[in-house]
């Protein structure tokens, strides 16, 4: 089973939910936790340990000046400005390239060759027994987050149980993360901002066709609006984490409430069972 953890909004507690769920699950079974927030991966902070790095590369064009006639087709085709056809040469801007390969297809001279460029890496570790942590890390200044997410997901492939921690928002990286997931946990907080972004995230999950459940984090006990929205949309609220000094203190130290606070391991076990039911898989 593959469970994605997403939220429209940053700072709602996606990583908290993902890390605690993984911690609870690793007590009794093999689980892979994939950090798909490749621009700011943070799950390794909960699970320190030495990791093995695998570089992520992407194909970018290289022009053979002996064949190029400066016809300009590649530059006209590239909508990201990765190729500038000038009077006497073609200038390549590799970091603007989205690796679509179109330039090599449109070149009538066969002058475009694709070469590999490293844009990030995937760090794999086994920080605690039965837990495999796979973190995608996009190099600074790079734009191809989905490529690194794909690589991270691929390295976790083969595990029976995989958790994907998505990046905030609802842009391409989140879509890439959700792709192929059996179910999605939408983490929200009961503020107007939380609800606004939950609305957007619920829409995305719905469009992709993934069943979802909602976790309300930092609840002050007045969640009526969020609950109303979830009822309206048929989204089950499967867990509520209260706003509490005790929980905040554990989090601040980089600790996991499933491991350190009584009662929470059971509650995360309940969350997992609820998700399995939503996904229609036996837990």
């Amino acid at each position, binding site marked *: 089973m593959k469970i994605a953890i997403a939220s429209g909004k940053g700072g709602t507690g996606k990583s908290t939910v993902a890390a605690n769920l993984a911690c609870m699950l690793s007590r009794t079974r093999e689980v892979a936790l994939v950090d798909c927030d490749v621009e700011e991966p943070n799950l390794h902070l909960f699970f320190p340990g030495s990791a093995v790095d695998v570089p992520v590369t992407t194909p970018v064009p290289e022009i053979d000046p002996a064949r190029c006639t400066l016809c*300009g087709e590649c*530059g006209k085709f*590239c*909508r*990201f*400005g*990765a*190729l*500038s*056809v*000038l*009077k006497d*040469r073609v*200038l390549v*801007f590799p970091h*603007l390239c989205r690796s679509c390969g179109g330039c090599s297809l449109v070149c009538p001279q066969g002058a475009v060759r694709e070469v590999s460029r490293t844009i990030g890496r995937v760090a794999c570790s086994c920080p605690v027994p039965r837990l495999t942590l796979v973190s995608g890390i996009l190099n600074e200044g790079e734009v191809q987050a989905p490529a690194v997410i794909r690589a991270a997901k691929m390295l976790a492939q083969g595990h029976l149980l995989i958790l994907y921690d998505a990046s905030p928002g609802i842009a391409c990286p989140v879509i890439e993360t959700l792709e192929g997931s059996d179910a999605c946990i939408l983490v929200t907080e009961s503020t107007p901002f939380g609800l606004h972004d939950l609305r957007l995230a619920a829409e995305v999950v719905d469009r992709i066709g993934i069943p979802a459940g909602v976790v309300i984090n930092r609840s002050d006990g007045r969640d009526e609006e969020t609950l109303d929205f979830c009822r309206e949309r048929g989204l089950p609220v499967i867990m509520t984490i209260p706003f509490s000094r005790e929980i905040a203190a554990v989090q601040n130290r980089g600790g996991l409430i499933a491991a350190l606070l009584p009662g929470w391991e059971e509650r995360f076990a309940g969350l997992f069972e609820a998700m399995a039911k939503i996904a229609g898989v036996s837990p």
Partner: protein
Amino acid sequence: MIIVGITARAAGTDAPVEQRFGRAPYFVFVDTETGNAESVENPLVDAAGGVGPRAVQIFSEHGATAIITGQVGGNAAKALEAGGIKAYAYRGSGSVADALAEYTAGNLQPLPLA
């Protein structure tokens, strides 16, 4: 013959100069010998990204050997340099014709490209 490309907010030499380079609404190309001007609507105004190098390509296609604009970004600067196109800064609020007059009078500072 020197063709100078100027970033502008509208077509024609009476249009105000646009400070942005790749996202300027119009590019006005002026032949400094004949005084002929050609205005080209910039197709990149709403493009997702990478507009700098693509704008340079448009200037290059129109045979511009010098451009006048407010400022250029890093990628555009690289393309301009590789293409042997000189860039000059016009930070005033005048028209394309005003900027061109300043240029021919030698009053414009070249933009650093490297």
